[in-house]
């Protein structure tokens, strides 16, 4: 668990640090330091293991079935990186304490920093590839937070988003790569991956795997052509830059190269892709660095260049090159971190990082200048400093490879050129900041930084020196263990020393030093050239163009699809339905019609069918004259009910008839507030298009119906017919199905009705519509709201209608009828009273509380269903029995009747709720007017 806890510590620490900031600014820093140390302490006991040649692996189950476990690994490479992350991390914590200003939130900064540190630690200590990826993405996320720390600055926001986008791209690619790798190996564990190197390299999926993983590596390590995000990430506070861009974030990419080196390297694809990208990056970074006026810009491109160098080394695929790569990782971390911190100090003290304004700082801050000069010299590869050693190993390997490969000395020449450029920009950094005359127009007068701000730089610079002077005594064991961890194999012969005699590498170093000095001396024409032509060449332009294209494309597609038009939605849906319904018929042997014998056609049915069709078409044709359309659609409803009657469905006919009238009343209520006539449509193309769709849809459903009707079928209906009387106690099978066999459907159905009522009630609240004071033809309304004869006679009809309703309700179980129809009849009977007498009259006489009726109905239906629980039967189990009372005689009682009564109540309640409230719309308006 120790490795797990080491990784977990910074994450938990992030919260502690944030909390500590409440105590005071320094507490955050102290807490962050403590957290870093704690992580180090968790690891410390295990440090000797890699030196002893042992790899520590700790496993914890997470998703074992998917091969995704928490698995940690401490080998040489992990140890090396963990040490750098925590060690430099500690220095950064210290440095940042003095760097951040009063306005900056300490808690937020250190909290993000801890998140980042934990993520980095997770990457390097992961044994499981997917877990590694998790931490990998976490570094992207936490660096987003760190880069955008000064969120009010536009460049910080942009830089952070760019870094996230580019490294995010790599992360997603790498996820693919790791999945493929795991697929090839059969495991995501590094141990298994290392053991399957040959299997991997010979697998047909090797190239896609490699490319996807390298995309991750290259984006993270800012390799060409993905390098552009890194300079923009310099918008981060300098401690962040120092940390992310020296020892950590960007090193994650090269760490992964080293990590997967045993599994993936050694193929031509690896060689060309990795070393190709590395070489291009090396040269490009070094070249651009020379022209940056911003101190951190220079360092950023220098970082890009050095990352290219390391990548190139790993690409070469020789063990010695790999050792050199690991060595340069260490060295670059030390000198680049110190340089960033120095730059930060300069920025902090002078208020600018522009080298055109920063001049002659030597006089103001000689001590800092000295430190910076040593570090810069290491960066340039000056002997006696650590940079020289690894760079010389690099030159040696380049020369060696050049001798073997086609192209002869091209590689050697190019890397020497890169070395020369590095020398040139290092000189520039020193010369233009500390010397080169007087400072121009600085925001403040620079002076030496606080004591403790220098300490981290001092430590790192000392490291540069001691390693450079006595590598064998200092860095050698660490390098050995790191290189061994990289190679996962015995180390090659190499010799860490300042002096290797006269050899090509030494020559290249000397040429680079001399060449660098020369280039710097000739910098003015170069600068002019650069400013004139080459500044415009920036990968960021491409990035922005791509991003703009993405936004433009997204907007175009989204707006093309979604115009906010309902007609379009309906159209899409209909077309989709037609395609889905038609597709199976193409190339199918299924005949359209079956061989079932049909019924003969009789003249009355034909007449009814004709009426329905004419009425339908008339409705369509006349739909702009809305009242007329309402009348013709009434005919359609009537004929549909007739069809139900004709084809043995009396219940349906009754229901359809009642619903029909309520719907017409509803539509009339609504029509009052809507335009009575609609204008002719001007878009005739649309009319034709819709007509065509309608024709196809109509034909489709007609054919579908025809196809089914002409086929025989077996049905479960027999069961209902057989069991309706013995099992359900009713002879009206449809009703028994509704209240018993499928009573659950009915419960749902009345819930829908109740919901419709309640929903409408909610909708109508605060609804205000202008009531027209004259009709469509401009006539004032009739003065007589409640015509006498109608009022008097409908009143007489009420008891009759209610009697009919009770009749229909009571007989429903055995004869056509039932709660629903009875409910509608009742509602209609009451609505007629509203029509005849008006809402005010009815309100005086009838409590308008329809909602309790709905509730009672639902409750009755539900609790009737629940009653069966008492007998240990499932919900809605019905029971019935025959009674005998004196005088009254025999009769049947069924629990389903109570259920049906519930249905009745809901229907009455909901229908009245809807109609009465809709009818009261106008009323409330008058009331409101009167009130005003």
């Amino acid at each position, binding site marked *: 668990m120790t490795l797990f806890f080491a990784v977990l510590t910074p994450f938990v620490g992030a919260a502690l640090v944030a909390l500590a900031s409440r105590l005071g600014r320094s507490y955050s820093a102290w807490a962050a330091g403590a957290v870093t140390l704690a992580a180090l302490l968790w690891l410390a006991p295990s440090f000797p293991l890699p030196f002893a040649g042992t790899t520590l692996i700790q496993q914890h189950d997470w998703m074992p079935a998917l091969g995704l476990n928490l698995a940690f690994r401490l080998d040489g490479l992990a140890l090396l990186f963990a040490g750098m992350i925590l060690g430099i991390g500690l220095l950064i914590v210290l440095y940042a304490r003095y760097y951040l200003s009063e306005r900056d939130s300490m808690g937020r900064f250190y909290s993000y920093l801890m998140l980042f540190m934990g993520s980095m630690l997770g990457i390097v200590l992961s044994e499981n590839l997917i877990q590694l990826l998790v931490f990998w993405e976490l570094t992207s996320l936490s660096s987003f937070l760190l880069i955008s720390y000064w969120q009010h600055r536009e460049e910080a926001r942009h830089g952070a988003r760019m870094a996230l986008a580019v490294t995010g791209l790599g992360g997603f690619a790498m996820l693919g790569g790791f999945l493929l790798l795991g697929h090839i190996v059969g495991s995501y564990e590094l141990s298994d991956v290392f053991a399957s190197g040959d299997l991997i390299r010979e697998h047909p999926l090797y190239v896609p795997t490699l490319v996807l993983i390298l995309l991750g590596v290259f984006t993270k390590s800012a390799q060409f052509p993905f390098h552009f995000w890194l300079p923009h990430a310099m918008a981060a506070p300098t401690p962040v830059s120092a940390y992310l861009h020296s020892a950590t974030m960007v090193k994650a990419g090269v760490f992964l190269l080293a990590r997967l080196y045993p599994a993936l390297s050694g193929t031509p694809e690896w060689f060309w892709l990795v070393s190709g990208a590395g070489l291009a990056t090396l040269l490009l970074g070094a070249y651009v660095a020379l022209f940056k006026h911003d101190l951190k810009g220079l360092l950023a491109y220098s970082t890009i260049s050095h990352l290219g160098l390391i990548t190139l080394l790993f690409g070469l695929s020789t063990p010695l090159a790999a050792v050199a790569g690991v060595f340069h990782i260490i060295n670059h971390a030390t000198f680049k971190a110190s340089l960033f911190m120095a730059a930060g100090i300069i920025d902090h003290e002078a208020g600018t990082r522009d080298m055109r304004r920063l001049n002659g700082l030597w006089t103001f801050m000689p001590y800092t200048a000295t430190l910076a000069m040593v570090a810069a010299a290491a960066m340039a590869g000056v002997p006696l400093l650590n940079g020289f050693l690894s760079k010389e190993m690099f030159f040696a390997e380049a020369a060696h490879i050049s001798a073997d490969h086609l192209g002869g000395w091209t590689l050697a020449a190019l890397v020497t050129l890169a070395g020369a450029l590095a020398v040139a920009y290092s000189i520039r950094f020193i010369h233009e900041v500390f010397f080169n005359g007087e400072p121009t127009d600085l925001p403040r007068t620079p002076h030496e930084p606080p004591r403790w701000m220098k300490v981290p730089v001092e430590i790192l610079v000392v490291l540069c020196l001691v390693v450079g002077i006595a590598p064998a005594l200092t860095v050698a064991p660490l390098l050995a263990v790191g290189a061994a961890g990289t190679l996962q194999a015995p180390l090659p012969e190499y010799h860490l020393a300042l002096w290797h005699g006269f050899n090509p590498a030494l020559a290249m170093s000397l040429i680079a030093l001399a060449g660098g000095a020369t280039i710097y001396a000739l910098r003015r024409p170069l600068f002019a050239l650069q400013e004139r032509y080459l500044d415009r060449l920036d990968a960021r332009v491409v990035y922005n163009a791509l991003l703009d294209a993405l936004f433009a494309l997204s907007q175009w597609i989204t707006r093309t699809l979604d115009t906010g038009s309902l007609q379009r939605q309906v159209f899409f849906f209909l077309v989709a339905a037609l395609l889905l319904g038609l597709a199976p018929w193409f190339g199918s042997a299924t005949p359209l019609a079956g061989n079932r014998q049909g019924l003969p056609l009789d003249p009355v049915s034909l007449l009814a069918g004709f009426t329905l069709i004419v009425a339908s078409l008339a409705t369509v044709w006349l739909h702009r004259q809305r009242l007329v359309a309402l009348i013709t659609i009434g005919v359609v409803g009537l004929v549909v009910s007739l069809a139900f009657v004709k084809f043995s469905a009396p219940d349906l006919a009754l229901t359809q008839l009642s619903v029909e009238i309520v719907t017409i009343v509803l539509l009339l209520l609504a029509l009052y507030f809507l335009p009575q006539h609609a204008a002719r449509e001007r878009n005739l193309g649309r009319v034709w298009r819709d007509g065509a769709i309608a024709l196809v849809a109509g034909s489709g459903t007609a054919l579908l119906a025809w196809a089914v009707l002409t086929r025989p079928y077996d049905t479960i209906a027999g069961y209902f017919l057989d069991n309706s009387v013995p099992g359900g106690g009713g002879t009206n099978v449809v009703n028994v199905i509704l209240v018993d066999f499928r009573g659950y459907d009915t419960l749902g159905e009345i819930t829908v009705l109740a919901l419709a009522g309640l929903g409408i009630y909610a909708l109508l609240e605060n609804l205000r519509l202008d009531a027209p004071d004259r009709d469509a033809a401009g006539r004032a309304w009739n*003065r*007589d709201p409640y*015509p*006498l*004869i109608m*009022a*008097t*006679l409908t*009143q007489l009809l*009420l*008891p*009759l209608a*209610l*009697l*009919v309703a*009770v*009749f229909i309700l009571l*007989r429903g179980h055995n004869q056509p009828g039932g709660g629903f129809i009875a409910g509608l009849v009742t509602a209609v009977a009451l609505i007629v*009273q509203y029509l005849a007498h008006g809402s005010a009259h*009815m309100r*005086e*006489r*009838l409590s308008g509380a329809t909602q309790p009726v709905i509730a009672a109905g639902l409750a009755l239906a539900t609790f009737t269903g629940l009653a069966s629980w008492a007998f240990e039967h499932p919900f809605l189990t019905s029971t019935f029995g025959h009674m005998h*009372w004196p*005088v*009254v*005689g*025999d*009769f049947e009682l069924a629990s389903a009747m109570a259920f049906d009564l519930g249905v009745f109540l809901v229907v009455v309640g909901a229908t009245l709720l809807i109609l009465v409230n809709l009818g009261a719309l106008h009323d409330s308006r008058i009331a409101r007017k009167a009130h005003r």
Partner: protein
Amino acid sequence: MKRLLPHPLLTLTLAVLWLLLVNTFSAGHMVLGLLLGWLIPFATRSLWPQSVCIRNVPVLLRYLVVVMHDIVVGSFRVARLILGRPSSLRPAFITVPLELKTDLAISLLANTISLTPGTVSVLVSDDRRTLTVHSLDTEDAAAMVAEIKHRYEAPLKAIFESC
């Protein structure tokens, strides 16, 4: 009593209608019919006019017979007109002065007029003093008015407006 049984006549009517409806004349349904005949008016008593008073039942019965006879005769007359030449019709609106006062009586008169020979009630004037009738084929408007008043209005007045 009035409260519990607001409309005894109605109760009886409804009970009879119930028996017609269920098409069964069993004791159970008689009980149920009476029960409903009581329950429905009771439950909707607030929606009912204060009371309907009916005097003169023999007049009522005679009136019903007259109306039924007139309906049949009137229908035959209308049928003849429909089958004849439409252009030979002499349609007219006729104003019938009303003596009836109660809503129910006026309404029943209007209904009766609509169901009987060639007339349809169109309008009760705002002051309820006249009833406008549309006549399909008018020979003598004054005679028609007289006939309506004598044949329908008088008995209705006797039945409903003599309490």
